[in-house]
């Protein structure tokens, strides 16, 4: 005999998904049904096989080497080109906004601001370059770290 009406319930029985009554009934049934005993043995065998972990050799050194290579800080021409682009955009943006500021109804504030800017254009230009280089390198490092 290769079939039994309880056979398909052995899976649930082993997982503890049966009601107490069904569990007791199946436990009694298992004592004398070779079909269900075989089914339970098979499920336990599958469980043992799947519980056995697979092993892999030593990979630690290879991974550490990769990590060191990826974390090596490098400044490339691309970094410098990006920095100059950031600076250019920053300064261009600032110069475009300047006429808008001067022509605001609060023209006295605008005049004061424009005077300050024009008198200190060199300082502002320098700050713009430094800020541009710093922000481009920082953003490229974040991307590079991935």
């Amino acid at each position, binding site marked *: 005999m290769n079939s039994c009406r309880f056979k398909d319930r052995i899976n*649930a029985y082993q997982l503890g998904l049966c009601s107490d009554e069904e569990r007791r009934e199946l436990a009694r049934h298992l004592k004398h049904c070779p079909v269900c005993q075989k089914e339970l043995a098979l499920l336990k065998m599958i469980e043992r096989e799947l519980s056995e972990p697979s092993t*892999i050799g030593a*990979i630690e050194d290879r991974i550490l080497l990769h*990590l060191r290579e990826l974390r090596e800080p490098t400044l490339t021409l691309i970094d410098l080109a990006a920095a100059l682009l950031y600076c250019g955009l920053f300064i261009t943006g600032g110069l475009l906004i300047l006429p808008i500021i001067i022509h605001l109804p609060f023209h006295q504030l605008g005049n004061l601001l424009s005077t300050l800017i024009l008198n200190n254009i060199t300082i502002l230009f320098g700050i713009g370059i430094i800020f541009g280089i710093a922000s481009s390198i920082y953003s490229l490092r974040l991307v590079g770290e991935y």
Partner: protein
Amino acid sequence: MGENGELVRRAKDGDERAIARLIAIYKGLVYTIALRMLGDPDWAEDITQETFIRAFLRIKTLKHPERFRSWITMIVRNLIYDHLRKRKTELPPPVRTGPGVESVRKKVIIQQALLRLSKQDRLLLTLFYYQGFTMKEIGEVTGIPSANLRVYLHRARARLREELRGYEDELLSI
């Protein structure tokens, strides 16, 4: 914080000995998941290495060191899913486990049956039987609500059992 939590904290600071120790502790887990999901030792080894590289480049984003195991399991899961997506038109390679002995035949039969299941079923079965995973962790990694996990597991086992139809006598005699 347990020993592993301390190792994670040191790894975040760039301590290579802590990183090496974490790899040694978790490489079995990562490799087992990759091998069960992909069926090929070479692919599994590549995925395992990639998992750790990605994990340690991003480790500063891990806010709770005690969750390192679930976190790294999610990384390997995502890499496996990407790998399967890229290779979806390819047949999986024949299962290889090494030089032939009788007990290897059992592993090959079960692995081949696993590969015929959906990736969710494979992942669920692998995590459930890997020692130490709580139902909560399995739920986090698979996206299945913890309350429904046993039912999903029951169905996954039933499908695996169906894939093994015809091999019962051979499996029990080995």
